[in-house]
């Protein structure tokens, strides 16, 4: 039988996990704050949430969007705090990548070295033993560790649950919130009760981790902090003073990382976006870009109130066009193409076969709704205009002036978004002029919006007036690939 001691890799993993889990918690709270409401059903229907973490109430006489609902949390509980979803996402995703790699290493080492028995029970008798341990704790006494093992029965079961159930659950429910994963595998998101089911379960996982940490620290205190600390530093109960000092140094370093991440994100978000985005985007491209949407929800699943983000162009030109049912609206398609074209709405309606798709919309803030979109597949337009070989991206310019139209957004200027040309050929990439069988409503982007179902919602530009095929985007706006990317520091490619 392998001796269940404290090898170096186990001790290192412990402290690395302290860093990763705390980063995940703080960045996760930042992400939660951007839409601090939890639901069970995919529709995220206003008023049906089961929990709220905000004091804001919304007006009933004006259109509000989910940017208005966003909460600003303190930097103590969230990373970095103060309505910085872009930053929160970057830290969350880069940490997840590190945490998954750590987990894979940990599992491998546990099984290869035989140390997995420290968590996985030898026999079923552990359950009655764990029950006895609970009774012992309730009697304000400490139970005995299992013979030859470092833990008592209930501790062993708890660690096993955290390492082999809770942690994977968090990762799996996280993945279930990726638009790309949901679009390619609708059954997978259904497994978790839908997009919002996965989100609520992910939140329970957060609570479970917080509870575990609290109980863990209490246990370490009850059982003997100096001794246990030494075990986790040196692997043996010796040099307690040095062990204490070492642990304080490690904890201070972890705190420093948190502070540095927070300050760096608040002071210089663009550099955080570039540095972390560089790594995260490669992960996305590798694992998530290949996932193409294959969604087909039923009509009965359509959301009665599809949520809205972004307010319509508050200009007289737009309102006059709208009241004339957009008869004067023209879509200009140009840039690096052989045949620049101008289309009216009637032209687009007659272009190729109208495609409809009933899909789950994922806002970057976390809400979702199911809608049916109808329009012309974007690839049909691409085939007509014939992009030149150097065209690699497509820029969608809209009629929305963010400074004028969206007071809850950080920044101003024309709203635009850029996607890779590759995505134009994906099966459910649509220029939509209809929603739920009727003309696309004004609040949802009339007369035309983009649908690109394996991406997060903010990429799907609304109120489009011009499409340009481009070779690079560094010279457009702030050069990050879209208005949200320029101003809120999201990544350009958002399969998650």
């Amino acid at each position, binding site marked *: 039988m392998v001796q269940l001691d404290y090898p170096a890799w186990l001790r290192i993993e412990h402290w690395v996990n302290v860093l990763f889990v705390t980063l995940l918690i703080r960045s996760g709270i930042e992400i939660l704050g951007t839409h601090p409401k939890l639901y069970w059903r995919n529709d995220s229907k206003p008023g049906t949430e089961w929990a709220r973490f905000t004091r804001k109430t919304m007006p009933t*006489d*004006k*259109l509000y969007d989910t940017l208005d609902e966003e909460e600003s949390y303190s930097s103590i509980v969230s990373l970095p705090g103060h309505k910085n979803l872009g930053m929160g996402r970057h830290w969350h995703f880069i940490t997840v990548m590190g945490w998954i790699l750590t987990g894979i290493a940990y599992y491998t080492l546990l099984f290869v070295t035989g140390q997995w028995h420290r968590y996985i029970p030898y026999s079923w008798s552990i359950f009655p033993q764990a029950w006895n341990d609970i009774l012992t704790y309730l009697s304000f006494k400490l139970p005995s560790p299992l013979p030859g093992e470092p833990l008592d029965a209930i501790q062993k079961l708890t660690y096993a649950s955290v390492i082999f159930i809770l942690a994977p659950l968090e990762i799996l429910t996280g993945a279930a919130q990726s638009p790309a994963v949901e679009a390619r595998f609708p059954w997978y998101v259904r497994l978790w009760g839908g997009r919002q089911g996965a989100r609520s379960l992910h939140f329970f996982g957060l609570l479970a981790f917080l509870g575990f940490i609290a109980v863990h620290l209490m246990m370490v205190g009850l059982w003997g902090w100096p001794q246990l600390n030494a075990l986790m530093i040196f692997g043996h109960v010796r040099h307690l003073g040095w062990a204490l000092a070492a642990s304080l140094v490690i904890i201070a370093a972890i705190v420093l990382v948190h502070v540095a991440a927070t300050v760096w994100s608040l002071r210089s978000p663009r550099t955080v976006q570039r540095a972390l985005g560089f790594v995260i985007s490669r992960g996305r491209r590798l694992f998530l870009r290949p996932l193409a949407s294959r969604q087909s929800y039923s009509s009965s699943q359509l959301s009665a109130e599809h949520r809205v983000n972004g*307010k*319509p162009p*508050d200009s*007289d030109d737009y*309102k*006059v066009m*709208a*009241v*004339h*049912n957009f*008869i*004067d609206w023209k879509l200009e398609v140009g840039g690096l193409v052989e045949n620049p074209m101008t289309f009216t*709405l*009637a032209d687009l309606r007659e272009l190729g076969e109208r495609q409809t798709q009933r899909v789950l919309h994922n806002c970057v803030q976390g809400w979702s709704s199911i809608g049916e979109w109808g329009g012309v597949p974007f690839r049909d337009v691409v085939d007509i205009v014939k992009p030149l070989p150097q065209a690699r991206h497509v820029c969608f310019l809209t009629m929305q002036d963010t400074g004028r*139209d969206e*007071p809850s957004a950080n920044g101003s200027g024309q709203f635009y978004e850029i996607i890779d040309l590759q995505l134009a050929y994906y099966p459910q990439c649509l220029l939509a002029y209809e929603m739920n069988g*009727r*003309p696309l*409503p*004004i*609040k949802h982007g*009339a007369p035309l919006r983009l649908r690109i179902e394996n991406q997060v919602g903010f990429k799907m530009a609304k109120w489009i007036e011009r499409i340009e095929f481009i070779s690079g985007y560094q010279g457009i706006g702030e050069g990050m690939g879209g208005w949200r990317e320029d101003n809120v520091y999201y990544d350009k490619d958002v399969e998650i």
Partner: protein
Amino acid sequence: MTTVGSGSAARLGAADTVRPELTVLTDEQKHGVLREVRRRYGGCRYCGGEEFLVGDALYLGFLFLSEDTDAYMVALICTNLACSAPHTGIRLHRSEFQEESPVS
């Protein structure tokens, strides 16, 4: 000044599917609109023409931040075929195009 009933001239638009945000006005309301147009502009701002068709109304108060809660945009179509911008609109408060009982 002519008005249009519930039928349509070709210039009213290719509304083969009705936009849900638009409201169809009654003849009396359209009269009210034309009254306001005459009072404010006299004729078409682009070609000076004096004849308009009145289309539908779009309620602005809910959708647009800057608008008053009772604001509407009403579609106007200049009937002058040579007009460069026949599709315009007029912003009205509801009370401004409500039916006016004829003075007896």
